[in-house]
């Protein structure tokens, strides 16, 4: 193990060992290039689609209803830094919400329209648009007593061995990052680039889709997208990734 740490320190000199390392650093140069160039980045069309949804009347909303734009103005200013703070506690309900759930409730409550489903193109598009406004900003999720229970639940899920392969998130992303699991180099499993275009999916997916993918990889029963379990895990990951900056929309293998 010690030798492994040494080798990794040589491979990733930019990051001190205790600092988190973005999944970006584990990608091939060709994959990094796709993320680096907004014109090549295959997730970028979603940011554009998100902008159209932001500006226009929501499909199916009542005549004269508000749009995101009519309340918030340009996302470049009003949404700057928002996704860096999510998931966050909803003051109205005291529950944890992530960006996707927040967008859904905004559409339901403020636009009086049917919110797009989790993982639909429309929800991914608005999520990508808003997350993009925090590019380069450090993850900055809430801390303290109010979220302590959620963090503990997230850690519990993270460290519980599960599925027929009997592996936890921690086994792969905490103890064996940098090593090869067949074609993949296991990264530290951070959340700072979502939604991501994943080459093996050939499309964009949310963080909760990634959770389910990893759980199915160990033959475990996944949780529902947007479930309390995934929200707790999302908060725990963002806390674990403190120090990383947001890359959304990212590109991964």
């Amino acid at each position, binding site marked *: 193990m010690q030798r492994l740490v040494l080798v990794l320190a040589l491979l990733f000199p930019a990051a001190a060992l205790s600092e988190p390392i973005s999944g970006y650093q584990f990608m091939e140069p060709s994959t990094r290039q796709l993320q680096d160039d907004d014109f090549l980045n295959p997730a970028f069309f979603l940011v554009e689609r998100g902008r159209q949804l932001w500006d226009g009347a929501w499909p199916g909303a009542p005549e004269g209803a508000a749009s995101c734009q009519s309340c918030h103005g340009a996302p470049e200013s009003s949404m700057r830094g928002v996704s860096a703070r999510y998931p966050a506690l909803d003051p109205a309900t005291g529950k944890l919400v992530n960006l996707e759930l927040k967008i859904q409730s905004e559409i339901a409550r403020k636009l009086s329209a049917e919110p797009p489903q989790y993982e639909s193109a429309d929800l991914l598009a608005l999520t990508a648009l808003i997350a993009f406004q925090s590019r380069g900003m450090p993850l900055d999720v809430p801390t303290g007593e109010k979220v302590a229970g959620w963090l503990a639940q997230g850690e519990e899920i993270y460290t*519980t061995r599960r599925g*027929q392969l*009997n592996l936890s998130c921690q086994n792969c992303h905490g103890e*064996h990052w940098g090593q*090869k699991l*067949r074609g993949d180099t296991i990264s530290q499993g951070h959340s700072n680039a979502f939604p991501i275009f994943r080459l093996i999916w050939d499309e964009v997916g949310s963080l909760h889709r990634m959770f389910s993918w990893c759980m199915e990889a160990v*033959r*475990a029963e*996944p949780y529902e997208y947007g479930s309390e379990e995934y929200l707790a895990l999302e908060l725990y990951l963002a806390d674990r990734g403190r120090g990383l900056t947001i890359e959304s929309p990212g590109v991964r293998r």
Partner: protein
Amino acid sequence: MCLLPLAANAGDVSSVPLTSTPGDPARGQDIVRDTGRASCLICHAISAMPDRDQGTLGPSLDAIATRYTEAELRQRIVDARTLAPDTIMPPYYSNEGLVRIGSRWAQSTIYSAQDVEDVVAFLMTLGD
């Protein structure tokens, strides 16, 4: 499917083959490389095999037959937890104590008894 001789007594069964059909090393080699079956090359490398993208989470299995007996290899594959409780190597012939197995997989173990025998037979060909 009969899953009788499982983990609880894995220590007892390991020196006795799990089936009466002798292991088939050629079939064992096909299993070992099969990515769809959560198989060994995910984590281990075998340099005699041409397969790309072999794993590095576990030690190389080169010349493994010179280091372990058939019974020891069988026991590791059946349930490596009986030897090292904290191992990350999956139990291939035991679902005992596992948490939240997906419904698609819960009805059987990763390998059948014959799969285990075939993989053991293949590993026994990995000499010097």
